[in-house]
């Protein structure tokens, strides 16, 4: 069974290695190898889910007393997340083959997806903090490579750099957090770290530092701004990043290390506040976004807030439940959006409209996805989101109330922007120029496959199968459910007013530019972080050239000048020697005379 656990990251990694050596335009073999890697990983994940938990260790290196072990441990939670990763990765591989049918650099693209999958699966199965960090950061690098894939988009390189850099800044904290944990427990093994008895101060420091990395990866305020930009990458990549990898990693790691986080009040408080802000922030920005993918991107930010909120109120099972159901429906939504974009040749909601009849498959699958996003029974998102809200209601302390209120308001806003997107894309008149039609079979298939979990995944919780796997009780709906549904209804009705002939975002009035520009956060970030660092860099460079190196060059120039001077003094012609000698004699004579007189 341990062999299966190694296969999880191993198979996609192998696929990636092969893929990097294929000639760049070789689309068919690259797609086949990439899909095969994802398929094998998916098979292994399913086998592990059915089987018992496994663990295995191989020593990788020793640094003094610290051993790094290539450790894997697959709990039911890890297996479930691995299944989600496998499904989404496979769908993305298949879908990409059709979506990027004329791409000249398909082989590295597919290999990068495989590497991305392998990195995420490494995080999922890692039983050593350093191995976890490897997967964690390789994901950042892969997101960079994939977001920059599209060469025709001028904004892609900047978005890619931003994604890598923002998460990397968070990872500074993550590495230091690992250092705190490892230095005290004198081990990097996750099992031993979780069992170690840290002092409160140490634990607070470690968890807060780790949270910085989590916030970066899971796009929590204030490290969220890379995620909406990241949709400059090809649409299947957005599906991959937003659903199964990258953003899921942060939430998963907090759940994995929950004994540490749960024991630190400060970490829980920070998490709760960030979750509440992130939820509302994402929802508000999604309301005014004009780009189909950007609406979905902001909705991811918002939904991630639910997950971290569930963690903050002490319920990792609820967080993981929402993580899994979100993985299904968000991947579906992005792939549907890709189909729409593919068909109308534009990202703008304004260029869509009336696509219901022209693209029936896309319409129905996207409807399922949006229903799950809003949380309409009986689709998956309903169950998982209700669970978060119920857990928040049951939680003690202000965190619970904060998450509950923010969560309920967000339910309403989510219903509003989802309805807007749905109506403006599929109803009314078609406003574009291209001839839209449903996508080819290879793109249609993943939509249909993903629609199944998006619709039915929640029923697993109903059947009582999922709860024990995630390690908690999942289903106790109560009156809060009705409140949430009522609020969702208000949101939907409000958005549908007049949506057939005008954009409901118009009714946001003065808030519209504020939301559309994401509260001008990028401008603030630029002013507060980017510019000062750049200025500091220029000053340092200048000082280095003038002061540090200037001193060195100055010594050189100075000695040459001094040498010249001494040389000149020592090598004058005979007349000047004579003059100098006479002048000396005169001087001595005057001095002698003067002393004589003064005496």
């Amino acid at each position, binding site marked *: 069974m341990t062999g299966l656990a190694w296969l999880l990251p191993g198979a996609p990694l192998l696929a990636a290695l092969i893929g990097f050596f294929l000639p760049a335009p070789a689309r068919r073999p690259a797609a086949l190898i990439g899909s095969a890697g994802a398929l094998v990983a998916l098979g292994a994940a399913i086998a592990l889910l059915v089987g018992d938990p496994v663990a295995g260790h191989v020593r990788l290196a020793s640094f003094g*007393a610290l051993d790094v072990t290539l450790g894997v441990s697959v709990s039911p939670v890890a297996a479930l997340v691995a299944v989600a990763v496998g499904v989404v990765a496979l769908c993305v591989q298949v879908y990409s083959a059709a979506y990027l049918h004329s791409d000249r650099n398909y082989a590295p693209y597919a290999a990068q997806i495989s590497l991305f999958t392998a990195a995420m699966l490494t995080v999922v199965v890692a039983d050593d903090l350093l191995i976890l960090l490897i997967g964690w950061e*390789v994901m950042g690098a892969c997101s960079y490579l994939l977001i*920059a894939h599209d060469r025709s988009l001028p904004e892609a390189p900047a978005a890619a750099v931003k994604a890598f850099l923002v998460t990397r800044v968070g990872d*500074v904290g993550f590495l230091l957090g690992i250092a705190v944990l490892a230095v005290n427990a004198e081990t990097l093994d996750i099992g031993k770290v979780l069992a170690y008895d840290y002092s409160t101060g140490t634990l607070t420091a470690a968890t807060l530092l780790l949270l910085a990395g989590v916030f970066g990866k899971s796009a929590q305020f204030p490290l969220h701004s890379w995620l909406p930009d990241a949709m400059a990458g090809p649409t299947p990549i957005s599906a991959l990043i937003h659903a199964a990898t990258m953003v899921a990693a942060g939430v998963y790691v907090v759940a994995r290390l929950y004994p540490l986080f749960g024991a630190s009040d400060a970490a829980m408080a920070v998490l709760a506040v960030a979750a509440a802000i992130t939820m509302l922030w994402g929802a508000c920005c999604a309301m005014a976004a004009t780009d189909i993918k950007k609406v979905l991107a902001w909705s991811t930010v918002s939904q991630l807030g639910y997950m971290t909120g569930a963690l903050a109120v002490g319920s990792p099972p609820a967080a993981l439940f929402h993580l899994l159901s979100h993985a299904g429906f968000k991947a579906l939504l992005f792939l549907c959006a890709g189909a729409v974009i593919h068909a109308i040749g534009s990202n703008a909601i304004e260029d869509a409209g009336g696509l219901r009849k022209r693209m029936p498959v896309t319409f129905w699958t996207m409807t399922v996805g949006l229903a799950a996003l809003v949380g309409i029974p009986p689709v998956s998102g309903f169950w998982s989101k209700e669970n978060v809200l119920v857990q928040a209601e049951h939680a003690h302390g202000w965190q619970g109330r904060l998450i509950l209120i923010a969560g309920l308001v967000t339910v309403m806003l989510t219903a509003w922007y989802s309805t807007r997107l749905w109506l403006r894309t599929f109803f009314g008149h078609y406003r574009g120029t291209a001839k839209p039609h449903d996508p080819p079979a290879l793109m249609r298939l993943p939509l249909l496959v993903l629609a199944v979990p998006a619709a039915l995944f929640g029923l697993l919780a109903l059947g009582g199968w999922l709860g024990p796997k995630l390690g908690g009780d999942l289903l106790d709906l109560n009156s809060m459910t009705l409140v949430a549904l009522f609020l969702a209804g208000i949101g939907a009705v409000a958005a549908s007013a007049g949506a057939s002939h005008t954009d409901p975002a118009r009714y946001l009035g003065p808030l519209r530019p504020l939301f559309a520009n994401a509260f001008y956060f990028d401008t603030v970030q630029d002013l507060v972080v980017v510019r000062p660092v750049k200025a500091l860099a220029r000053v340092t*460079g200048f000082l280095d050239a003038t002061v540090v190196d200037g001193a060195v060059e100055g010594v050189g120039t100075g000695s040459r000048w001094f040498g010249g001077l001494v040389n000149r003094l020592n090598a004058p012609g005979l007349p000047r020697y004579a003059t100098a000698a006479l002048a000396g004699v005169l001087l001595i004579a005057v001095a002698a005379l003067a002393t004589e007189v003064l005496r």
Partner: protein
Amino acid sequence: MILIALLALPALGALLAFLPGRTGRLAATCAAGLTFGLSLRLYSTDSGYWYEFDRAWVPALHLRFHLGIDGISWPLVVLTTLLTLLCCLYSLWKTPDNRLIGLLLALQVGLLGVFVALDLVLFFVAFEVVLLPMFAIIAGWGGPKRRHAARKFVLYTLLGSMLLLIGVVLVINQTGTADLARPAGTASLAAFVFLALGFAVKAPLWPLHSWLPDAHSEAPTVGSVLLAGVLLKLGTYGLIRVAIPVAPDGAREAAPVLAALAVGAILIGGLICLAQKELKRLIAYSSVGHMGFVLLGIATMTATGLQAALIGNLAHGLITGLLFFLVGALKDRTHTGELSELGGLRESSPQLAGLLGFAALASLGLPGLAGFWGEAFAVIAAAQRGWWLAAVLAAVGGALAAAYLLRLLRKVTHGPSTLKLTGPAGYELAAWAPLVVLTVAVGLAPLLVTGVTGPAVDALVEAFTK
């Protein structure tokens, strides 16, 4: 005897390069290949010295010709022989000049001499032997301002050598022995300071680094590769092999200062890179930052830190060697190193762009590649030592490295390009491929290095903590 052969082979190769025409070049390159093979054969995971050679050298002065190799020196010996071989192969096609290849081998004699010397005076002599061939390589085959750069390099490092010599004399006076295999460990703080200053110039430690960017930006590609790949390691190796063992008490006192300067180097190197406009200078300054991590690891004087330093040393040699090869190839094709004039490499030569991307990711310490281990564990070692501020600042330096390398990639590889550059030639790929493979191998299986260095480092730490 095998150690004598290790030094004699490249020396013979350097002489063979005097043979006229192709014969000389090929014979010298063969000698480099044999040296590389020989260095691989030395492999072992034992603690203590695997091979030793000890003869009287100048009996009247008690000088001994004492050579030895152990887990600390072996990785660097292999790095030296590998990089020299690759540089010779590269030069065979790129600049087929017998004199250059002869100089490369002469340089190798000095470098290997430093890494296997176990007598302080012998160490110093080998340390100096390195200077002249390097001077000639820069001054003979460098860029337009090569004479200035070569002079600056030699004068600056000679200054360092003078300080080192004072240190050497102090050590021998105070401890009565020049033996490095079994150092008395009783030299004073002053001795440590002089030795450390000498090594700091070589490493280079901020603020004694300013010869490096000039030397790098003017040196020919093979010169840059060996300079960054091996010469800088003389400084860090010297600290581990000489300065700390002979004066452990002094080292402990000076360690916080060393750590502070190392952190300064990481941050300042990173910031300068962020504003740097020229490709080769940028990579030169990135070396200052990376060597800062190595020096931080050394400054902790713990087993973790020294392990991190040794693997960091090796990784920097591989990765920066590769980077200089790639940048050299790029400059050969575009005839400019100005970042503002470059761009669109992804369009004009996808293969070069891919390799440059790989090297940059490795250089920014991406986990899973060689550079990660040294930097991550330098941070952890600093934390272990209780130097939390240093750990935090060094980690921030890691983020800075990502910032400047991504900026570099964005300027060089992205954007439109109308040029059509020729892809990498066969000989170029042959020179780069081993570095790529080793970067991945050390990244995925660091035990390859830590397994060798581990016993030696444990013995070293035990010796100076007793």
